[in-house]
């Protein structure tokens, strides 16, 4: 279980959200920017979905019908707030960018419930950038997705900041921690 009461967890998580890649000094440049922005709630973990109610009554429509077997379908559990082409249909994987693309060190996040263990996980939706749109398995799930003035949970923005190309190819869904 992660230690919720220590700064270390948040530092770790921020590093992870920022891809903890120091390649090209991204973390130094972007990490600081993200942290500096005073009212981005980077970790939307404190609300309904991350609470304890894992009964049918506590789950969104997406969470009630989500599955854990096929990550090329829009109803795969991690995709509760994804928007775009699934990288799993494009030569990549659930946390793997297809050949010729780069994972963005920045991302929007979702909080999705894994039906196998009943836990809410924090999912970083990292866009894979650098090639033209894959355009396969297009999904647009909107659990707790917000507008662009609250960008950390907005899935319409092209999240290709800090990579060499801003061409959007597909989106991955990376487990970056629990949200309980």
């Amino acid at each position, binding site marked *: 279980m992660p230690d919720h009461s220590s700064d270390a967890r948040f530092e770790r998580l921020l590093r992870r959200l920022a891809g903890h890649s120091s390649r090209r000094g991204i973390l130094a440049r972007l990490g600081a920017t993200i942290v500096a*922005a005073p009212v981005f709630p980077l970790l939307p973990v404190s609300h309904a979905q991350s609470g304890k109610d894992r009964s049918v009554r506590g789950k969104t*429509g*997406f969470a009630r019908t989500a599955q854990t077997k096929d990550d090329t379908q829009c109803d795969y559990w991690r995709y509760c707030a994804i928007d775009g082409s699934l990288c799993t249909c494009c030569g990549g994987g659930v946390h793997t960018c297809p050949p010729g693309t780069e994972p963005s060190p920045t991302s929007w996040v979702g909080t999705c419930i894994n039906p196998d263990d009943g836990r809410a996980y924090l999912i970083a939706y990292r866009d894979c950038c650098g090639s033209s749109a894959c355009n396969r398995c297009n999904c647009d799930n909107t659990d707790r*997705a917000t507008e662009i003035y609250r*960008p950390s949970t907005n899935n319409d923005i092209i999240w290709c900041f800090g990579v060499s190309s801003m*061409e959007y190819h597909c989106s991955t869904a990376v487990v970056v921690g629990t949200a309980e």
Partner: protein
Amino acid sequence: MGGIGRMRQRISVIAALLSAAGVQAQAQTPPRPPELPVEESDVAALPVLGPRVVMVNTNWGSTGARLFDGDTGKMLGLIHEAQLSNVALDPAGRYFYVAESIWTKGNRGTRQDMLTVRDARTLKVVREIALPGRLLVGTRKHDLGISADGRYAYVYDFDPASSIIVVDLVRSRVLGRTEVPGCGLSAAIGAAASLSLCADGALAVTTLDARGRGSVSRSESFFSAENDPIFDNFAVDTASGAAMMLSYTGLVYPVDASGEPKAPTPWSVQEAAGLPRASTAPLAVNWLPGGRQPMAWHKPSGRLFVLMHMGEYWSQKEPGTELWVIDSATRRVLTRKKLKHKASFVEVSQDAQPLLFLNEEETLWVLDAATLEQKHEIANAGGGTLTTFGPVR
């Protein structure tokens, strides 16, 4: 190749063509209409755009902002744009402004953010004003604002820190950048201000001083950007600073952004229809607003047109299956119209007998906004935000 060789070849071609096509006798069928004259190629110019013209901005895929005459249903022209661009009309109708981001080698090379100024009649590029950045996002109207007097452009940037880039359109240069931390969007308000919404549930107004430098003032927090966000594509009267905003649960926020930003008092579209307010609880099925541009505001009559669907909460991108016509003064739903086709975008013209525009996928529908009778169904019109030309954006 030398000139003589060219000439020799040319003569032999003409000779070959002559022998092939040459001496065919003409069959004379007596009472024949005259031959069609040979024609010249020419280029059309756009008419002056009235209030009943709509712009469909397809900024993903087959890009281009397509203009349609709402009365005839005919396409008038396409304003070229790069992917994920914003397009706005100069209030005086002289120019289109395209905020676009282009790489020198398509997906690679040097990034060039620019405000491309196009002549509103010929659509030719008049000039390009280099920008220091801009946000790349689809289907948002208020990433580019043009001040009511046409002097300033406000370009919203997020990189990923939030700021508004102010462009002096008279001098064709960037004046500067104002940070709007924790806020987003840059809708124009009056002559020298820009309206944003913030993640803490406040309004922010960035006001320019005499030298074009912005200072930000914020309202109290009045909504939850996390639990009941206001849709980015709200309706704002640039001239007066009045705006109508709508939240995911169906709360209408009548905003006055003309002075110091004040927290508005919301009312519920469901209550306006005699229904209870929408619940955000799972399993609760409500009538909810949804789509990408879910509300239009006919300012002269105070009517709102809202795309509504039945669903659980967090279905905010679902297209509308009903159109609700609401009198914003009495806060009563006047009509609930079941739509033949779902729609994600709605806009209305600001004239006395307004037209209503609906868009979904690549189809544009034009309706009489009073009778809701369909006047045109326009195929392959593109898909994206709808804009009519007048004070309300």
